[in-house]
C-alpha cells in the first residue's frame, strides 16, 4: 500500500513533466497539422541554453526559464518563417520529413558543440523531497507539474481570451477565412511555432533540472513521449496534453509496480492502442481549436 501510494504520487508529478514536454507539440500539430519530429531537439536546445546560463552565470534554472523561453521563441519563429512555412501546405509526410532532417542537423550540431555527455543542472533542492507519511514528493518534479498546469491554463486563456489566440485558432481552422479577416498566416504560424519552441525549451530546462539530458538519446524519447501523449489526450485540445501526460505518468508508475521487468512498456502501448480504437478523439474529446486530422 505504501508502495502504491508512492508510485501514484510520483506518477502524478512525473505526468506533469510529461505534459510539459507534450503541450507545445500538441499545439503545433493541432494548429498547423505538422508533426514536429524536431520537438525533442528543441527541448534539448533549450536545456543547453539553461545549462550554459547555469554554468557561466550560476543562474538558477527556474530563473533561467524566461530567458530560455524568449531565446527559443526567437529560434522557433525563425525556423517556421524561414523553413517550415515553405512546405506547410504539403502533405503531412513532408513536414514530418523536414522536421526529421532538421532535428538531425540541430542534434549533430549540439553534439559537436557540447559532446554527447549527459548534462544536468545541479541545484540544491530539485532532487530533494518532502514527506507525507511514507510518501516522498520531489520538489523539482512538483514544480514541473505546477508549471505544466499553469502553462496549460495560460495557453487556454491565450487561445480563448486574446486577439492573438483567436487569430491562431482561426488560422488553425480555416486558413482561407483567416486571411479574409486580415490575419497574416505566415506570421501567426511562426508565432505558434515560436510558442511551441519556447514551451519545449521550458520542458528541456525542467528535464535538465530534475534529471539529465544528452543530444543523442534524450530528444527521440521526448518526441516519442510527446507524440503518444498528444494522441492520448486528444489533439487540438488545450487540456489534452495535461490529461495525456498525467494518464501516462500514473499508468507507467503504477504499472511498473504491478508488473515485473519491463512489461509495463508493452502494457502502456496496448493501452494507447486500445484508447485509439475505442476513443480515437482522445481522452478529453472534442477539439477546441484546429485539430484537423488528415494525411
Amino acid at each position, binding site marked *: 500500500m505504501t508502495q502504491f501510494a508512492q508510485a501514484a504520487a510520483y506518477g502524478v508529478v512525473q505526468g506533469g513533466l510529461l505534459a510539459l514536454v507534450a503541450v507545445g507539440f500538441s499545439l503545433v500539430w493541432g494548429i498547423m497539422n505538422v508533426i514536429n519530429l524536431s520537438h525533442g531537439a528543441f527541448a534539448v536546445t533549450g536545456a543547453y541554453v539553461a545549462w550554459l546560463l547555469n554554468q557561466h552565470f550560476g543562474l538558477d534554472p527556474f530563473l533561467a526559464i524566461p530567458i530560455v523561453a524568449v531565446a527559443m521563441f526567437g529560434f522557433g519563429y525563425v525556423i517556421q518563417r524561414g523553413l517550415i512555412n515553405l512546405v506547410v501546405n504539403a502533405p503531412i509526410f513532408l513536414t514530418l520529413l523536414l522536421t526529421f532532417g532538421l532535428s538531425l*542537423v540541430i542534434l*549533430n550540431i549540439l553534439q559537436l558543440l557540447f559532446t554527447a555527455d549527459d548534462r544536468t543542472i545541479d541545484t540544491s533542492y530539485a532532487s530533494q523531497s518532502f514527506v507525507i507519511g511514507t510518501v516522498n514528493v520531489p520538489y523539482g518534479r512538483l514544480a514541473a507539474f505546477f508549471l505544466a498546469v499553469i502553462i496549460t491554463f495560460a495557453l487556454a486563456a491565450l487561445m480563448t481570451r486574446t486577439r492573438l489566440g483567436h487569430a491562431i485558432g482561426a488560422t488553425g481552422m480555416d486558413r482561407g477565412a483567416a486571411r479574409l479577416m486580415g490575419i497574416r498566416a505566415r506570421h501567426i504560424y511562426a508565432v505558434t511555432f515560436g510558442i511551441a519552441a519556447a514551451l519545449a525549451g521550458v520542458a528541456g530546462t525542467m528535464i535538465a533540472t530534475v534529471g539529465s539530458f544528452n543530444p543523442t538519446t534524450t530528444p527521440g524519447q521526448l518526441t516519442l513521449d510527446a507524440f503518444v501523449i498528444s*494522441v492520448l489526450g486528444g489533439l487540438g485540445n488545450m487540456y489534452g496534453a495535461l490529461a495525456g501526460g498525467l494518464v501516462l505518468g500514473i499508468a507507467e508508475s503504477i504499472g511498473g509496480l504491478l508488473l515485473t521487468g519491463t512489461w509495463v512498456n508493452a502494457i502502456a502501448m496496448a493501452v494507447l492502442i486500445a484508447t485509439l480504437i475505442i476513443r480515437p478523439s482522445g481522452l478529453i474529446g472534442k477539439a477546441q481549436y484546429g485539430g484537423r*486530422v488528415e494525411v
Partner: protein
Amino acid sequence: MSSRGPQSVSSSTDALAAILQGRQRTGREVVVDWVRSRTLANSWPALAGVAVIALLLGLQQLIEPGTMRLLSAVFMFVALAQAWNIIGGYTGYASFGQVVFFGLGAYVTAVLMNNYHVSFWVAMPAAILGGVLFAVLIGVPLLRLRGHYFAIATLGAAEGAREVINNMTPVTGGGLGITIPTFGDQAPTAYFGKPGFYVAFLVLAAASVAISTLLARSRFGYAMVAVHEDEAAASAVGINTTVVKVVAFGVSGAIVACAGAFYAFQQIEFYPTDVFDPSFTVLMVIMVVIGGSGSVVGPLVGAVGLELLSQFLRVNLGTYNQLIFGAIIVVVVVFFPQGVVNFFRDAWMARRFSLLDNIRRYRL
C-alpha cells in the same frame, strides 16, 4: 405508376444498354487476349527488370565481397521501401510501425533456427506467415483508424512488440540477444556468405519490385488507389475497403518480414533494439517520400539513392556525416516536395523544370 421501364429495356439497343450488359468474357479469352496484346513496346519494363537483374549478377563478379555486403543493404532497403509504399503510398495508410514486421521476421527466424534447429528454408516462410498473421491481427482493428491515429497506433504496436520480445527471455533471449548457430555442424542451414546474401537480397528486392509493379497494374492496385483517395467513394463503387486495406498491409508486412528473416540470418547475432529500431521505419518513409510515393520507381530511386548517399557520407565525412545527411533531407523536401521522380516526370511532361514552382506550390 409507370410501367414503361421494363418494356424500354427490351426495345433499347443503344450503347448504354450494351455497357450495362457488361463484358462476359471467359478466363481463357482474357488470357489469350492478354498474350496477344504483349508487344516489345509494352513489355519493356519486365525486360528492363530482367536486364537489370542480369547486370547486377554480372556486377557481382566484378566486386569484392565487402562491397556485396554494402549492396545487399541497398537491396534490402529497396524491398523495405517498396513494402512501405504498398500500404503507405498506394493505400494511403502511413504506417509508423512497419519495423514491427522486420523484428518479428527476424525473431521468428532466429528462434526457430536457434531453439528448434529448423532449416532457414522453413524458418523464412514461417517468418513471412508470421508477418501476414500479425498484419491481419493488428490490421483489422487498426486500419479503421485514419491518418495520424493509424500512424501512432502502428508505432505503438511496434514499440509494444519489441517490449514483448524483450521480456520473453526464456524464448527470445530478451535483452540478452539471440544467436543463430552458423558455425560447424551446429548450423541448421549453411551460412550463405557475402555472395549468397547478395543474391538473396537481390532476389528479395526484385520480387518486391515485381509485386509492387503487378499490384499497381491490377484491379487490386486501382482499389488501393481508390481507398487512398476516398474511402466512401471507393466503397460506393463496390470496393471492400476493409479487405483492400488488410491485404495491402499483409503484403507489405510479408515483404518486410521476409527482409527481417534474411537480415537475421545475415547478422547472426542481434538484440531486440537492433531489429525493432524505429529508424528502419523512418528510413522507409524517407526513401518513399523523397523518391516519390505511390509509384514503383519512386521508392526504388529513393532507396538506392539515399542508402548510397548515406554510406558515401558516412565513409567520407566522418563526424559530420549525419549533419550533412539531415541538411540534404531538408533541402530535398523543400525543393522536391512531390518526390524526386515525380518532379522529373511531371517536369518532363510539362517541359518546365522550375524548382520555384515547387516551393510556390506548398509554401504559405
